[in-house]
């Protein structure tokens, strides 16, 4: 896990300049222009919702690719289209070398799918459910494959208990074990840690990272910034059904700026004007001013001096590395938290 995070602890982006550009791993997902509009009919009349409006993405073999966005951004719809569950209105995709629209059966054979609900049945044991999934996928030795995946996810002890008696974290692990029993080259995880406590989240993150080591490509959706930041090799940020940014977490944050200084002062507008020459960007957000700078430690003294010269009184100041939320804010004008609240 230590070696998984080189470019987001301040290191150089070594992947971009590497000489093996021509030997880039082939793509496991290549999707282009995916669209989906839902029509709902009710007593109040017909309503159409454009859930996904032209999403394209490329996932390399063996990488963990994240789809980050607030609730209602179109993440689940995108995953459902890519997993053959619903047909896109427009667009095309190649998944594990198979055409999504023309060869859905071949696509299904190559993927594991873990929905937001999980798909763990209440009355049946974890073992029975995993064996069933293995049999559907024509695994040569379903019992052995099941035992292995149970062991791998520390589920052997509760393997024979009915699904409803498992805790939230255990259920999640069973859900992923079901999706992995046939060793698919590609795994879809739709909001894998929603509703889990911090300990279980950390545990699950660790297991998802191990998938990368095993060579499984993962497409995961999440509305947690820290999750996308900690897990994904690359990610795209979606909002209102459109891709607003794409890249490695490190690149995305660097694109916005290295650091963000958040301050509260008595006249934010004037403070923003004063600090503009020092910053890449300034942004007034309700009662705080965010100043995006490349090098926070060295800008801070100059910034404080400038404010003092203008006689602007400060009530608080904080220096942070920029987060994916800052990226989201820069691209959409809203914070992810606000976007989640209004949808």
């Amino acid at each position, binding site marked *: 896990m230590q070696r998984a995070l080189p470019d987001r602890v301040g290191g150089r982006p070594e992947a971009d300049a590497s000489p093996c550009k021509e030997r880039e791993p082939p793509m496991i997902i290549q999707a282009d222009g995916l669209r989906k509009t*839902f029509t709902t009919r009710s007593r109040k009349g017909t309503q159409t919702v454009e859930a996904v409006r032209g999403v394209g993405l490329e996932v390399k073999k063996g990488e963990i690719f994240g789809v980050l966005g607030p609730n209602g951004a179109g993440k689940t719809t995108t995953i*459902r289209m890519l*997993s*053959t*569950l*619903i047909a896109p209105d427009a667009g095309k995709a190649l998944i594990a070398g198979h055409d999504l629209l023309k060869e859905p*059966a071949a696509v*299904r*054979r190559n*993927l594991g*799918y*873990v*929905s*937001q*609900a*999980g*798909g*763990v*049945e*209440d*009355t*049946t*044991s974890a073992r*029975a*459910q995993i064996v*069933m*999934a293995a*049999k*559907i*996928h*024509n695994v040569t030795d379903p019992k052995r494959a099941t035992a292995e995946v149970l062991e791998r996810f520390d589920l052997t002890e509760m393997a024979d208990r*009915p699904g409803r008696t498992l805790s939230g974290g255990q259920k999640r692990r069973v859900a992923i074990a*079901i*999706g992995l029993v046939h060793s698919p080259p590609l795994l879809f995880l739709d909001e894998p840690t929603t509703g889990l406590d911090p300990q279980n989240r950390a545990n699950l993150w660790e297991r998802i990272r191990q998938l990368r080591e095993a060579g499984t490509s993962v497409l995961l959706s999440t509305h947690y910034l820290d999750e996308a930041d900690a897990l994904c090799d690359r990610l795209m940020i979606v909002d209102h059904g459109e891709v607003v940014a794409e890249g490695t977490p490190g690149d995305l944050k660097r694109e916005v700026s290295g650091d963000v200084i958040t301050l509260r002062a008595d006249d934010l507008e004037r403070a923003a004007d004063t600090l503009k020459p020092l910053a890449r960007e300034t942004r007034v957000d309700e009662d705080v001013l965010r100043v995006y700078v490349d090098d926070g430690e060295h800008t801070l003294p100059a910034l404080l001096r400038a404010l003092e010269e203008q006689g602007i009184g400060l009530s608080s100041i904080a220096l942070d590395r920029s987060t994916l939320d800052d990226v989201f804010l820069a691209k959409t004008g809203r914070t992810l938290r606000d976007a989640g609240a209004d949808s």
Partner: protein
Amino acid sequence: MIRHTVLFTGYELKKSFSNPVWPLFGIMQPVLYLLMFAPLLKTMTPGGTTVDALRVFTPASMMMIAVFGSLFSGFGLIAELRNGSLERYAVSPAWRPAIVLGRVAKDMVVLVCQAILVLVVAIAMGVRIGAVELVLVLLLMAATGLFASGLSQGLALTVRDENGMSQTLNLFMLPIMLLAGLFVPISFAPDWMKTLAPINPLYHAVEAGRALFAGRLSDSSIPVAFGLFVVLAVLTTIWSMRSLRRIAG
């Protein structure tokens, strides 16, 4: 295709029998009906013996299990719709109709167990039935059950809500039961009910069942009931398989 159907049937059966108490209760129900309802019916039956009453009531109770046992099996699908397992099967390489057909087939297996038990009890209580009639009764019951199970799965996938589903079933249950002459033969009913009864498909199944138990193999109700329920069973099964397409909204 067949492999997946067999796979799902086995899985559903295992699920049903993972706690053997519930299927045992399900199987007990028709027996209790025979034991407790037939004596009540005795006073209303021409002839007035328990065997006469049973000859009228056994076929009715078999059709009743076929319809009302299977009509509720769709509730399982609603639960699986909610916990996401249905979605998971839909993304798997499984032949999609097998997901529904497995459940229907499971209902049929349970039904046959119940039917055999009812027949054993009825025969023990003195009812006699010929071999041909016996096979025909079982087949008719299977067709009726297939219709009800298909209807239930299709309804579950369309309504997608336990509350709505139980209200819908309750609304139809009483009129269908009474208009079929299940408990009280329709010959006791007022004229308007007698006129309405033939609209109810179950009426024909019950009439045919009674004809078979009475040994009237040439009774016209038998081909009518078979024709009707084979067509209905095919229709509801196709409907339930098609309803599966809607699970992804």
